[in-house]
């Protein structure tokens, strides 16, 4: 098992395995989307800072505060799984690229704002809601492709490609 993890996965095998996990996991849990996990953690932070009165007065936070912590658990174990896989294959290491730190900050902020608009992340849109032909997801997917195109062009300019 450990030996298997050390090998890089072929993309076809990886895609099929990911799909199997996704299909099985909607039965006991839910689809693959970690934005709700982030919202859940945020709601705990806000309740710690501003107290419960604030959470109850703001429907966006009230909605997520009372959800099961499973969304945050999945997110935490996802990071842990990434760590285990990277550690076993000797890819783990503290890395930092100073020239793109500002991109990470701006990109992170934009993604956070986008999450509030579409209420999930792009995985939730593409792999979870789009297969169900959700109308909101179709609109968001079109937006995501346009946005990624614009973002890729900005990235291209910045990197001087």
């Amino acid at each position, binding site marked *: 098992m450990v030996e298997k993890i050390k090998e890089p996965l072929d993309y076809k095998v990886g895609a099929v395995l990911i799909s199997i996990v996704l299909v099985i996991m909607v039965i006991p849990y839910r689809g693959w989307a970690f934005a709700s996990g982030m919202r859940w953690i945020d709601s705990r932070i806000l309740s710690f800072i501003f107290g419960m009165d604030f959470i109850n007065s703001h429907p966006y936070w009230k909605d997520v505060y009372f959800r099961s912590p499973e969304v945050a658990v999945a997110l935490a174990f996802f990071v842990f799984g990434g760590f285990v896989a990277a550690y076993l294959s000797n890819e783990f290491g503290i890395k930092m690229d100073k020239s793109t730190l500002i991109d990470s900050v701006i990109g*992170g902020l934009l993604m956070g704002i986008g999450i509030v608009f579409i209420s999930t992340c792009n995985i939730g849109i593409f792999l979870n809601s789009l297969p169900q032909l959700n109308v909101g997801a179709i*609109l968001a997917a079109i937006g995501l492709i346009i946005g990624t195109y614009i973002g890729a062009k*900005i990235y291209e300019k910045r990197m001087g490609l």
Partner: protein
Amino acid sequence: MSLIAAAIAGFILGILVQRSRFCMTGAIRDYILFGITRNLKMVCIILGITTFFYTLFLSIKGIPAHLPTMVPCGWFSLVGGIIFGIGMAIAGGCVTSTFNRIGEGSINYLLSAIFMFIGIIIASFTFWKYFTLPFGRYYESFGVPYGLIWLASFPKMKAGTAIFDLPPVLIGIPLSAIFFYIYYRLEKKEE
């Protein structure tokens, strides 16, 4: 029970995503910039398989799956998609790959995740109140909370009041065939 399931699913996905280098941003961005189709093909395979099974689960009564997933719908979906898309192309990873690379020890992605948390809080205080109805009705802003059921019951456009009353899998089969066809074309183009 669902806590354990969530932990197992998160852990396995973490390993699979790290090992197969799956990246949703890369799928779109690499194709636009460099014409690399590897991640795009992965997305096509995953969509082809999951579309079939999700619609099958929706068609069979009695499968206790957490479906359909509800997503709010309105002009803000499009705008939010564009904002998110720009962000993920600049940061170099969506939520999933960002968190996966934190596990690999990347400081850049850690910073990106911290600002994602901040971004959610900022947007919830500012933009959010301008476009949302009270949260209970949020999902129904077009009167069509479930896409597939909407298609299967087309003229009435309201969930549960189907005229055709088709099982969603009838739409799922051609749709997953389309995804596999796109995969096939991409594969062929590379050869």
